[in-house]
């Protein structure tokens, strides 16, 4: 264990950098991801998907395909059980909490009548080999009535747009409106003060429109699952997912079985970034398994299926207007946020609304959000979902205001920065936050004042906000006779979280991180744990580990009391030493007492189950230097520094890793990444290199500065990391591009063609 923090550390384990427990498995290729399960004595499923983005299914005929060599069975939506819906077709209240009703969830698994995006699943087929299944899927005959597709949010909101769901009733201000024949699933509004008066009193008003493209999480491991519906009725799922309990419960609902009928074993996961919370192949593989004699069925997605059929994050149209006084005080703002939900309702526009003005104290504002269905894949979560689009808009306007007033852009933000006790757009108050601390750290960072030499170079900054999540987690601890502990938890580990969780238990028990062995276990073996996402895992599952460790500690003290014949109130346990205050000869190390447990009353296990409310919101910033070639529009990112208030950094290396990874994804979003849709609603760049995620050659080193404003809502001060760092890059890069070549970009991605075009238009005006 190497402590590399220079500051004095009040903790023994927290803040150090132990080697992760799963490290050796992952550098030797021996770690088991879901696709690595043995491929013998199983069957292989393939999903037939719609070639059309918008169509009515007239008929499906699987009979020819089922006669082919090696084919065992086929399923369509008709094989899904008739499930009882609520009075309005809504899902029963469950722990799954997916943002769609059950009918739409089922239609997303296997379409029953209508196709609303290209690649929507229509049928599943299973065969002895994967190649046979792939061939057989081509022989399933489907008749379609093809309809006009609409893939752009503005077009989808226009009069006479093709309507995706005739039964979709628009909700406005939380109330059903009775209005059908629209693609707008929901309109909501946040409002405070008198925005007209605010603008009337403003000395500078800037209003801009922004268009952002659909982008994908781009995790390297495609979704895959192996499912066995056994003859005793139990369904066992082995898969790659972020939310084992959410997918277990959704699968149980879709298949109309009990939660105890489904066991989900999450294997190691090859990235998710929000994209692996939803069931896709699991219910289909289960049905195929049942039809094919209860054998395990494996379904793996191709990379093209990943882009076309899983949930990207929305494209959007955003209009933001902000007003400030000549002294640089923001006093008015309006935001119009229209987000593409994809083929079914449920975009992250509500989160976008919470984020768009979040870093600032603006007394008068109106924020309107629209959730709009379009003929694109149903969106899913992606790292601070909704925030990046929205804050790209507001943070470039803020930069322009600062420039017009001749105020340093950080100074301008400091003048308006929000703080503890001030209200958010939804009316709730901020608890302890590090907005000002992040801005100060940004201003004081050597990068911010470093010389910038050469033509067509510029430096941009931006701050980003994300609310983070709490939600439920459970942890169990078993004490071994040699003083080590086994810790079991239900949070799939995407970036070293099991070690961060183990470290928190170790801190409480006064033992080393190496003496804790953490395991991510199946849904039969641990209490409900919400998925790995929302920057919540180290915060909430870490807290459950703290509670489990405290439970162990209490029992260890009681056991020592029993052994010594002392009252437990006179016994303490600090730094792994259990001792009596009444008799200094009475002392156990953790290991010594652990060795006594089995013969003095039996083993000790601890449990922790939490639903924490003390979520600490995150602020992060980025300083970025760009060079822009005005002839070609190519942007080179020459230097970046990512700064975030993380509360307490449990394992600084993996905190930095999250900051760097989020920054890299934000840079890709800013400059390259985009779904190219043709007029039929078909994505034309569904490979990694055509979609163009950043390679090692596209990025510089990514410097980080961790700011630690402890979160009073967590026993060790953790806020959580992972998401907020994706937010600042598009705006910071746009601001740097402005300082490089003098144009304000209002679209994502800011690809070379767009920059050249903007420069050209700018000269003409």
């Amino acid at each position, binding site marked *: 264990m190497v402590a590399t923090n220079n500051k004095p550390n009040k903790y023994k384990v927290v803040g150090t950098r132990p080697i992760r427990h799963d490290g050796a498995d992952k550098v030797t290729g021996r770690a088991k991801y879901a696709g690595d399960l043995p491929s013998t004595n199983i069957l292989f499923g393939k999903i037939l998907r719609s070639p059309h983005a918008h169509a009515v299914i007239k008929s499906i005929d699987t009979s020819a395909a089922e006669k082919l060599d090696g084919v065992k069975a086929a399923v369509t939506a008709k094989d899904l059980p008739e499930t009882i819906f609520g009075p309005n077709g809504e899902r029963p209240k469950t722990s799954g909490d997916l943002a769609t009703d059950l009918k739409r969830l089922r239609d997303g698994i296997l379409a029953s009548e209508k196709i609303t995006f290209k690649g929507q699943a229509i049928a599943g087929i299973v065969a002895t080999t994967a190649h046979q299944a792939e061939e057989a899927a081509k022989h399933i005959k489907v008749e379609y009535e093809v309809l006009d597709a609409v893939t752009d949010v503005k077009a989808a909101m226009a009069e006479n747009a093709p309507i995706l769901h005739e039964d979709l009733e628009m909700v406005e201000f939380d109330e059903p409106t009775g209005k059908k024949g629209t693609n707008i699933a929901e309109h909501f509004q946040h409002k405070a003060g008198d925005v007209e008066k605010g603008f009337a009193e403003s000395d500078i008003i800037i209003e801009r429109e922004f268009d952002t493209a659909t982008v994908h999480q781009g995790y390297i491991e495609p979704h895959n699952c192996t499912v066995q519906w056994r003859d005793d009725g139990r369904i066992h799922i082995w898969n790659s997912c972020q939310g084992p309990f959410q997918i277990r419960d959704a699968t149980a609902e879709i298949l109309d079985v009990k939660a105890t009928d489904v066991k989900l074993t999450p294997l190691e996961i090859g990235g*998710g970034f929000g994209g692996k919370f939803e069931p896709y192949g699991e219910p289909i593989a289960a049905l195929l398994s049942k039809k094919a004699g209860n054998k395990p069925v494996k379904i793996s997605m191709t990379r093209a299926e990943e882009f076309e059929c899983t949930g990207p994050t929305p494209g959007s149209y955003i209009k933001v207007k902000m007003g400030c006084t000549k002294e640089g005080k923001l006093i008015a703002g309006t935001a119009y946020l229209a987000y593409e939900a994809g083929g079914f309702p449920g975009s992250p526009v509500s989160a976008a609304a919470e984020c768009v003005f979040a870093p600032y104290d603006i007394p008068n504002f109106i924020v309107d959000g629209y959730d709009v269905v379009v003929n694109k894949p149903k969106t899913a979560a992606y790292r601070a979902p909704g925030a990046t689009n929205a804050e790209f808009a507001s943070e470039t306007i803020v930069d322009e205001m600062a420039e017009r007033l001749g105020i340093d852009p950080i100074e301008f933000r400091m003048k308006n920065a929000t703080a503890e006790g001030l209200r958010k757009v939804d009316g709730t108050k901020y608890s302890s936050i590090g907005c000002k601390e992040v801005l100060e750290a940004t201003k004081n960072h050597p990068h911010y004042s470093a010389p910038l030499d050469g033509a067509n170079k510029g430096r941009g900054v931006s701050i980003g906000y994300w609310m983070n999540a709490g939600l439920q987690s459970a942890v169990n601890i078993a004490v071994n006779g040699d003083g080590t502990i086994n810790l079991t938890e239900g949070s799939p580990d995407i970036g070293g979280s099991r070690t961060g969780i183990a470290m928190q238990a170790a801190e409480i028990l006064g033992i080393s991180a190496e003496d804790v062995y953490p395991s991510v276990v199946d849904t039969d073996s641990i209490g409900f744990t919400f998925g790995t996402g929302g920057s919540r895992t180290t915060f909430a599952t870490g807290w459950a580990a703290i509670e489990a460790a405290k439970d162990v500690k209490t029992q260890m003290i009681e056991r020592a009391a029993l052994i010594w014949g002392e009252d437990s109130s006179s016994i303490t346990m600090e730094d792994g030493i259990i001792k009596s205050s009444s008799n200094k000869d009475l002392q156990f190390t953790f290991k010594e007492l652990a060795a006594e447990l089995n013969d003095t009353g039996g083993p000790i296990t601890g449990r922790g189950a939490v639903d924490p409310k003390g979520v600490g919101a995150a602020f992060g910033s980025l300083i970025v230097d760009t060079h822009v070639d005005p002839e070609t529009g190519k942007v080179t990112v020459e230097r970046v520094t990512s700064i975030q208030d993380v509360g307490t950094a449990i394992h600084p290396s993996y905190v930095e890793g999250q900051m760097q990874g989020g920054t890299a*994804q934000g840079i890709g979003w800013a400059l390259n990444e985009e779904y190219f849709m043709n007029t039929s609603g078909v994505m034309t760049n569904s490979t990694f290199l055509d979609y163009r995620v950043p390679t090692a050659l596209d990025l510089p080193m990514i410097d980080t500065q961790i700011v630690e404003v402890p979160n009073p809502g967590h026993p060790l001060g953790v806020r959580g990391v992972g998401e907020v760092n994706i937010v600042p890059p598009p705006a910071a890069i746009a601001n740097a591009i402005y300082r490089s070549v003098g144009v304000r970009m209002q679209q994502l991605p800011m690809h070379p063609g767009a920059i050249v075009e903007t420069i050209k238009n700018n000269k003409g005006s």
Partner: protein
Amino acid sequence: MTTNTKTHVTTTINGESVEFLCEPRQSLLECLRDILNLTGAKEGCNDGNCGACTVELDGRIVDSCLVFGVEAQGKQINTIEGVATPQGLHPIQQAFLENAALQCGICTPGFIVATKSLLENEPNPSETRIRTWLAGNLCRCTGYDKIVKAVVAAAKQMGG
């Protein structure tokens, strides 16, 4: 009756002579993973874009998803499973751990195989050279910063 005629392939994997039967259409990646249960090489894209399936074939790194299994006949293949020795982890593997150069870990075997090939031929590469060499391996978690640092640290450890 099946129409798939399987081909007998004799090859060398991580120094051991190996024989297997495969369909002519099966990629080397499929053969390694599904027939030989060497699952360290991963499938991320199956079209040569991501490098998660990187293995060494007669001294050159290749995307094993773009090589047919039958092409392994008579060749020398080195995979991630052969990088560590009974004496312990390879310095590159150790450097990846110490530098926290992995998050989800799915791309890590490919990066390590590619890095080994680089450092065995160029003991002291520049940052630009490292980035160029590894541009065929995509990592979506780390932003590559800690990977580049790990490669530099490994080069140093290996005497570069």
